Every structure is written in C-alpha cells, then in structure tokens.
C-alpha cells in the first residue's frame, strides 16, 4: 500500500499532467472541501460529437485530492459526456488503487464532484453526485 501511495499518488501530485486552466472553455466548475481546505477547479472543452475534447484541473490541497484530479482529467479526455455523467466513486478508487477511510474519501472524490456538477450544469456540488 505504501508503494501504491508513493507511486501513483505522489507521482501525479508532484508532476501532474493536466494542471492548468482552459480558456476558452465550455464547462467550468470549482468547489472546495471546507474541512481541509482542498480546492479544485475543472475547465473543459467539448467536441461537436459530445465528447470531452480537452480538460484541465487547478487547485491546491492534499496529494490525494490533487492526484485524483489529475487522474480523473486524464481519464475523461475523449470520452462522451454521457459517460462522464455516469462516473462514480469506484472509478476514482480504481485509479488510486488504495483503500480510503471516510475522511480521505472526501479528498479523493472532490474532483469528481466538481466535474459532475459542471457537466450536469448544477448550481451547487452535492455529495450525492459521487455516491
């Protein structure tokens, strides 16, 4: 487990491939986890065929929240938005490859919550999006 923590998470935390902000963008959403101050913004460009053309995340926080965001963005580029809407917490946990207690789960799922709130065009992000 330590190895997984180190390899996947630390790598994506220290050297994210998708950190940034797209301008122009079709979808933008941001939220934070008030408990630990993690903050994530996601910007996204869509293609004419309803797929994700490009995406970026920005923000700050713990390794889990930032690495999850990087992994998530990587995983959705090229995917149909309809498929993105269906993503759930297993998608994130599979990519991280570690078990997480309830507190760290919130960190891990922040980016997915932000992404889904953006894609669904919601005013507010809710925990029920990622259950």
């Amino acid at each position, binding site marked *: 487990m330590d190895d997984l923590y180190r390899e996947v998470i630390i790598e994506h935390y220290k050297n994210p491939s998708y950190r940034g902000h797209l301008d122009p963008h079709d979808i933008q959403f941001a939220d934070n986890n*008030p408990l630990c101050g993690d903050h994530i913004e996601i910007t996204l460009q869509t293609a004419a065929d309803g797929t994700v053309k490009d995406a970026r995340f920005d923000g700050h926080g713990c390794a889990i929240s930032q690495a999850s965001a990087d992994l998530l963005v990587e995983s959705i580029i090229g995917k149909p938005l309809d498929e993105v809407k269906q993503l759930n917490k297993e998608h994130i946990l599979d990519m991280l490859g570690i078990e997480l*207690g*309830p*507190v*760290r789960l919130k960190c891990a799922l922040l980016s997915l919550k932000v992404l889904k709130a953006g894609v669904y065009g919601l005013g507010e992000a809710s925990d029920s999006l990622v259950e």
Partner: protein
Amino acid sequence: MLNVNEIRKDFPILQRKTHDSVPLVYLDSTATSQKPTPVIEAMDAYYRRSNANIHRGVHTLAEEATAMYEAAREKIAKFINSPSARQIVYTRNTTESINLVAYTWARANLKAGDLVVLTEMEHHSNLVPWLMLQSERGVELEFIPVTEDGLLDLEAYKTLLARTPKLVAFTHMSNVLGTINPAADIIRMAHEAGAVTLVDGAQSVPHLKVDMQTLDADFYAFSAHKMCGPTGIGALYGKAELLEAMPPFLGGGDMIKEVKLRSFKPNTLPHKFEAGTPAIAEAVGFGAAVDYLTKVGMENIAAHEHAITEYALERLEEIPGVKLFGPSADKKGGVAAFTFDGVHPHDVAQILDRDGIAVRAGHHCAQPLHEKFGIPATSRASFYLYNTKEEVDLLVNGIYKVKEMFG
C-alpha cells in the same frame, strides 16, 4: 415464541443475588432494561481495541470508530424502518430527543396562542418541555383526556383537532397504564388537521415492532437503555424535510460545516444536531442492542410479554385489595401498575425487595396521571423478554406476604 431460559443466560445480572442470597426477580424494565452480554461486550471491545474520536480522523482507530458509530446508526434506522440513517439523530435519551424538537422546531415554528395537544398520560419528558415553552412563548396546551379504563378519549381528541393545533405530541405506550395508543390513527388525524406529530416511543420501540414509514410520524423519540442498550444514548427520528429546515440545537464541534470568528455554517444531517464528541461507545452498544433484539425477533418479544402480562393481570386481580390501573391485556404492553389497600406503594416495594423482587413505586414520572386517578403513587411491575411466569408467581406470593404483615 422465544426460549426464555436461553434468553436469561444472555443477561449476566439475572444471576445476581440481593440481600446476600436472594435471587433477583427484576420486574422494573419499564424504568430501564437489563443488558445482554453481546451489548456489554461490544462496548468493552470498543474501548479495548478501537477507541478514538470520530469524524475527520485520518488514522486507523479514528476510521474504525467512525465506521462503528455510523454502522450503528444504519442498524437503528433499519430497526425502525427509517427511510435513511441520516434521519436518526443520536441524543442522550428520549428526554433530550423531545427537548431537541422543543428547542429547535417548536421555537422556530410556534408562537403565542398556537395550540399544542398532549395527553393526560404523558411522562414528564413529554410534558415539561412544553410547559417550559408555554411560559416562554405563550403557546397553549390542551390534553387528550384519559378514560377510567386508561384509554385516550379519541372523541375529545377530534374536538381538540377542530381548534387546528400546530403540534400533537403523545406517547405511543404509557409507562404506567401500559396502554398502547393507536399511534397511526392519531397521527393521520393530526395530519388531516394540519398538525405536526411527535411520538414518545420510549416504551414502544423496546417492546413492539415500530415502522416509521407506516406510522408516518414526523418526530419519534426513544432511549437505548430501555431496549437492552446502554445508558447515555437515545435517538430522535425525524422526517428529512423537517430536520433539514430546523435550526441547529447545541453549537460546537462536528455540527458545523465551517466556522469563522463572526459566523458559522451548520453541517448536513444528522451531524447538524450532534455537537461535540458524541457517545461513541454507547452508539456501538446501541447497535449491538438492536442486533440482539432483531435476532430474538420483536414479534416473539411482544408475544412473550403479552403472555406474561395476561397471566400477571389475572393473578394480581385475584388478590383482595389490589387495584390495577390501565386497560385489559389485549390493549396494553407489559406493565402492571397497582395500589394495595392500606399499604403505601413504597412499603409494598420495600417489602418485595426483601424477597429480591424489584418493582418500582412512586408516580413514575407521570404525576398528573396519578393525580387524575386521585392517588399519589402506584407500585409497578413490568415485564420484558427475560421475565417468566414463575417470577409473576413470586410477585404474587410477595404481595400476599405484604398483606399478612399489614393484615
């Protein structure tokens, strides 16, 4: 039917002797129930293996403790068929559950002149909070009368409903008369009149199968200690939309989403109502109690208690000078409150205690009900899953002994 001899082995205190060598005959479960080994051991194991403060903890113990605390909530929700666990708020006891509603929902929604309907058979817990609100806010209180045979006068209730009360708060089962009130009907009628309902379930949840979705109660209050669980914890069930709209109760850690020096945002349900470090070990014990009762089966428990109660009422009635209160066995739970000519209930209880028989004597926190019947106190024997007909016989013999002494 349950196997009472097997059940009794689960309760270590039933091996207890009092006065050196007299075996305990515990007939006071309405005051508090005894605890089976799995409940005692669950809390013991929690302290020996997993104890930590919950929520926000990243380390293993904190995660374990949080998971155990929340798993118990899920069990309790399922036990009363609550649509979700977030509608179960942990409190200290039934009393705090009712006060929570009085301090939050009621203070946010009731104003001077608004009518609150209670009953004459309420426990002080479902009376004093409303008396306090009456002096503070000027709400009006009216009471559904209790008939001579210990039932609620539902005709009088209809008349009260015509005055469009804002709240109808009543006990599902009386701790003195044993009366099981027709809760679903009372709630339906209250709703038709536009009132919110609060049910004191302190005596019903331990003894009957209760179902929040069938009953349709808006608030439902109960205590773990009366249902094989530990002291120090109880629960309030509420409808989600009511709980969500209510202001918070106690302020502090965990009940907040965000705090600044000049403002705060309350947390989501149920945490909004759970300020500070909660009764964690007790929640674990509460969950174990619910598991235990579920395993035995609430239907079996109710049937067993019914059989004992029927027998007890029959035997007690035979004793000259004994006067029983409350309805007949088919309309009540396992409670037999009585007076005994010429002997004060305290003396009855004390003399029975010499034979190891634990009954309660007094007004049982239902002083107005006793006043209504023109007596200061009653003796009360009450029955639970671990009681036997032999114990009823011992009680009856004990009362004959009292008779002889005072003869």
